[in-house]
């Protein structure tokens, strides 16, 4: 992945998570994954188009998703959830939208033009995601609710 794209995603993930969860966020070591990689259980996908093609995946396990959604709802003075219902799914989707949106804004300021597709949420066990010949950059984030991985796979349009 193009070097210039890395920081905007890392910064956006850190600042958005810190803001919505109101807590300390630790970033793990960035690494690359080959195309087929397992998904933790709940994954919000946002497609990217424009100068590049690819997608951003916000990936976490079901328990983390419920707790993160609850924390976000609580901050808006809403009832926490106990299972991943419609409200929970919408909340996680919105989180992915916020992170990707902020990253794309930062990229736009650097002169890269990205368009976003509406997010989709995928849940299930033992899922794998594969893109042909695009490796994924993994930004692992540790929050009190658990581990969230931002998985970015984009390539230049050639």
């Amino acid at each position, binding site marked *: 992945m193009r070097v210039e794209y890395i920081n905007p995603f890392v910064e956006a993930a850190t600042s958005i998570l810190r803001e919505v969860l109101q807590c300390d966020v630790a970033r793990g070591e960035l690494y690359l994954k080959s195309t*087929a990689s397992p998904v933790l259980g709940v994954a919000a996908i946002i497609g990217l188009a424009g100068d590049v093609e690819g997608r951003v995946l916000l990936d976490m396990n079901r328990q983390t998703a419920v707790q993160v959604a609850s924390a976000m709802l609580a901050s808006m003075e809403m009832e926490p959830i106990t299972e991943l219902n419609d409200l929970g799914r919408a909340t996680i989707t919105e989180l992915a939208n916020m992170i990707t949106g902020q990253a794309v804004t930062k990229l736009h300021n650097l002169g890269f033009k990205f368009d976003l597709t509406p997010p989709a949420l995928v849940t299930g066990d033992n899922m794998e995601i594969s893109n*042909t010949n695009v490796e994924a950059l993994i930004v692992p984030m540790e929050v009190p609710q658990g581990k969230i991985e931002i998985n970015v796979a984009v390539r230049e349009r050639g």
Partner: protein
Amino acid sequence: MAGNATTERRRSVQHTGLFRTQEIDDESVESVDFKMVTFSLGGKLYGVDIMMVSEIAKFDEFTYVPNTPPFVAGVYNLRGEIISVIDLRVMFRLPIAYRRADEPADGLILRLETGLIGVIVDSIDRVVGVSSQTIQPPHPIFADVNIRYISGVVEFEQQLYIILDTERILGPELALGSAPGAARAIGRGAQPLPASDRIAQTVAGDAEPPASVLIDNVSSTLHSLTDFVVSPVNRQWVEQRVANWQSDHHGEIDVTTPESADRFLRGFATPDSSRLWTDEYRAAVAELLPEPRGAINVWNPGCGAGYETYSIATLLRSVYPESGIKVWAGDKDLLRISTAPNMIWSSEPPSEFYLDHMVKTREGYAFTGEIKDLILFEFSDFLHGTTLPPFSIVVIRDVLSYLPEEHQQRVVRTIEDGSLRPCLIITGTNEDLLPILRCKEVSRGPVRGYLLE
């Protein structure tokens, strides 16, 4: 086609004359210069040129593909790459040895000009090295296989091995139907190999020089202390280095610590690495550059902090002011590559040449936007697969020597599949590409270069 093959061979021979000592040639008259992987099919022993074999595999779980000839066993997922698998026994109408349904089938993955293909055999035997001079032309009674698929027959330890011409069997001619018959019955497999291969196998092969035990020791030590991998790509340098080291250290090879490993490897690195190319190095590269034909794409894996990337980009811009140029540079070391897009010199760069392509900023000298726009730095591990536009220049200096041999093969395949021909490949000064890629050496001065045609 035959004409091409001959020219290629002649070129490599000339080449060797230029760049190697004569003695290896003389010595190889009776030595092992043809290696084959042997296997059994319907009770007879067969062999294929080891240079054609990508790997030995156990196939299980094919995916059956409808509407294919009966000898197509299906497609197989080889670590993400889908390859076709052919059952040679069905193809040659041989009896198929009984095998339990859940037992994986023995087979080979062959690298043909058209790509990878898997073949199923009864069982893999071993690797046998013979002298190509002992290979005899095929005779119709030798095998159950149509003679035009046989490139020769050779005896080894009282066993007859039938050498198959894989390109003829599985290559593009398969689709075209009949081949010219027995006139070309000895395919290239049975010919004395191009001299380049002969060198590779004499160096890496069975006829081991006396220092080989030492080199094996050094090789495993280096591998545990550094990422350096002793392979045919750099074996020549290592042998020379071991010899020199012995004379300097009274016969002791005391490479036991990281410091001594670094000392041992001193001198391996290409002189112009980790800095912008000097005028001399750049001039030598310039002489090797091909005629411009449209857009020029460069693949620069393992670019590190980006010095060589900027060097090649500025050189190309000055040589081809009109052409579209793109340099795809990548490294899996995030720390090093992340500084590459914004490289800054606090003092003046090493050569005035670069000043023409730089602007002075408050922090120091930086390359102009025009040069930066030619380059795409990627945080990337090319083992995960690459999507590159067809490239005609590869700058891969001191990268192959730090990769295990199977990963070197991946690089070779990426170059073979992704390049326009002719493709100029620049390797490290002490790296030899001939053992792993059929190409010709075009080195000039300090620059080690190869041309893939």
